[in-house]
């Protein structure tokens, strides 16, 4: 490695901040956590070697606060910053501010990020590199949008030109909905990414979402680590991802990997990134490049026996990427979210009253949750990712169903039972994958009757159990009674036994 990194600041929160800290420590790197006032007691803060409060709960003033984060890195002498995903991870100005402060940014160069992070510019690069794209146009103008829609036909898809992750995405089925949808999308895009530009695309009927993991180094080497199928989405956000993509022919895979490598080389891409495609029958269309680590990166790690954050850090240290070893087995991830799948996935908040975490062979749980943790409305509702490996897809699937059966979380409404029912279903077993999977098979999902009966019995038992009272638990972290409160009395200890 050209440079030896010593201290890494992680500019993120939640499971991904914890996950990055864990891998940085493998190299003996010291780690610095940043946190907002809402996250003072969160797991990533405790896991790091140093931690600093960078602002109030509002992300705009904390996790999106470039000046505060770069200042924190300088203050602690961090020589590298890892942005995680979301927040500032795809903001070229953050990568630039980091570089300007003589700190290594763990990600692509700002200009590459700028080119690829913008969906419109990225499409241009793709077209120039001979990679097929879905018909689309960048506009927030209602008249131009009407014209495009008339040309390609409804339904059409409206999304933020900046950022990713499905936020602000809307399907418009007919002309009458167009104006309202454009407005709402622009509003959400502005709120989420500070950039209200909108991209409109032809909406494919039954596409699969398949993406290719890329790693590039500073020496001009770019490699691909296979594909991930992320077709199972609700509200245009992935909830189940797997590798390999079931039924994808070796030929299609090779073509898509080739397209992703072409794109990455054309863009001068470095560090970890993902080229996303829609696949319909024998065609694939470039969608966008996510110039960062993806939420679903663990399925790739399990198949390739690698650690992508370690790879990112090696690349950021000037190391070279090698052609990966042949992948092995199958891996499936599901995202446990604080949301109510019985009520249109509306977000949920609360205090974790009890947490039971699955374990054992082939099971990985990436989560920042602990008993007592608060799930606040300030950030996205990802509670944890449960990932299972198997010698083949059926083994991975069986393991994941069982692991979800071992999971339980009390106090915050979540989608774990919903995920279990999907993954245990015949449709998922048979890999009837498309981005409409949820709409087609699981839109009106309700928890099963026998489980409701069991819940009612459990509620009766709990109602009658004096030990079940947790009214003393703090309502939120600010109100939390600190152990300090009692310190003055410690000499009374003997009398309180």
């Amino acid at each position, binding site marked *: 490695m050209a440079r030896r990194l010593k201290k890494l600041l992680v500019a993120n929160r939640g499971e991904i901040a914890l996950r990055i800290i864990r891998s940085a420590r493998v190299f003996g790197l010291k780690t610095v956590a940043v946190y907002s006032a809402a996250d003072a007691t969160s797991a990533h803060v405790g896991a790091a070697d140093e931690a600093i409060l960078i602002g109030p709960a509002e992300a705009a003033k904390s996790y999106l606060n470039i000046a505060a984060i770069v200042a924190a890195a300088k203050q602690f002498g961090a020589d590298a910053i890892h942005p995680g995903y979301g927040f500032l991870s795809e903001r070229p100005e953050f990568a630039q501010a980091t570089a300007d402060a003589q700190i290594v940014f763990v990600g692509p160069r700002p200009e590459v990020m700028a080119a690829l992070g913008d969906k419109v510019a990225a499409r241009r690069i793709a077209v120039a590199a001979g990679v097929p794209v879905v018909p689309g146009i960048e506009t927030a103008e209602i008249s131009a949008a009407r014209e495009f829609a008339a040309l390609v036909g409804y339904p059409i898809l409206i999304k933020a030109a900046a950022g990713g992750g499905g*936020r602000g995405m809307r399907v418009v089925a007919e002309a009458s909905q167009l104006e309202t949808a454009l407005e709402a999308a622009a509003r959400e895009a502005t709120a989420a990414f500070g950039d209200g530009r909108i991209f409109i695309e032809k909406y494919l009927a039954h596409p699969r979402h398949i993406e290719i993991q890329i790693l590039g180094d500073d020496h001009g080497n770019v490699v691909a680590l296979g594909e991930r199928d992320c077709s199972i989405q609700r509200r245009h956000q992935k909830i189940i991802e797997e590798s390999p993509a079931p039924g994808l022919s070796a030929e299609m895979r090779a073509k898509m990997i080739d397209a992703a490598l072409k794109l990455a080389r054309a863009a001068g891409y470095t560090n970890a990134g993902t080229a996303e495609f829609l696949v319909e029958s024998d065609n694939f269309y470039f969608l966008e490049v996510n110039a960062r680590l993806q939420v679903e990166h663990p399925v790739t790690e399990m198949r390739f026996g690698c650690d992508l954050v370690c790879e990112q850090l090696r690349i950021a240290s000037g190391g070279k990427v090698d052609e990966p070893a042949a992948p092995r087995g199958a891996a499936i991830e599901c995202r446990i979210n604080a949301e109510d799948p019985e009520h249109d996935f509306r977000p949920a*908040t609360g205090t974790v009253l009890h947490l039971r975490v699955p374990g054992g062979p082939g099971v990985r749980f990436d989560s920042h949750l602990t008993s007592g943790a608060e799930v606040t*409305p300030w950030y996205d509702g990802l509670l944890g990712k449960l990932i299972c490996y198997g010698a083949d897809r059926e083994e991975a699937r069986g393991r994941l169903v069982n692991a979800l059966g071992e*999971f339980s979380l009390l106090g915050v409404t979540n989608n774990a*039972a919903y995920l279990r029912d999907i993954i245990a279903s015949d449709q998922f077993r048979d890999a009837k994958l498309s981005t409409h999977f949820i709409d087609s098979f699981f839109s009106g999902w309700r928890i099963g009757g026998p*489980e409701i009966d069991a819940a009612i019995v*459990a509620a009766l038992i709990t109602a009658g159990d004096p030990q079940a009272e947790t009214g003393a638990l703090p309502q939120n972290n600010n109100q939390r009674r600190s152990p300090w409160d009692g310190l003055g009395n410690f000499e009374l200890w003997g009398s309180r036994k």
Partner: protein
Amino acid sequence: MKLMRAGDSREIDAEVIARDGNTIRVRIGDRELVADFTPNADGGGILANDGRRYPIFGARRKESIFVSVGPASFEFKPAEAAARRRTRGLAAAEITAPMPGKVLKVLVRDGDLVEAGQPLVVIEAMKMETTLGAESAAMVKHVRVEEGQTVDHGAVLIELSPPPASSGRESAPRAR
């Protein structure tokens, strides 16, 4: 006792009829079921019913009873607590914030007549917009928030009164 699941306005009438050792006989509505409960070391237990064993866990907090059945989690409230918020002819007399957030849009004014399912207010929380609608036909009695305002969990956003056409008939509450 009478329970309601959070997010569901139907009452569940359930009680323990008898217990004998680990065996519990419970009435749910007009059905009866017999289950076995074995406590676990972690404070939860295993509930065996109809040939299946469910890991369960439960805790009470404020008015709620939280329970989990394997990966499924539930929040119940005693019906008396839930009923306080209801008025004759209305599924709910108040529209409350299901979570802390920011009021993005208020779509009605005092005095408006609204239909079941009609959107009333849009709030933003966890980076998502959530639209809150009327659970039954109603008249908007009082809008208590304005756009841009941040609200806490459970804050009353809009007060509703029965629609003038309603002549005391209980309209079937419907889940949102």
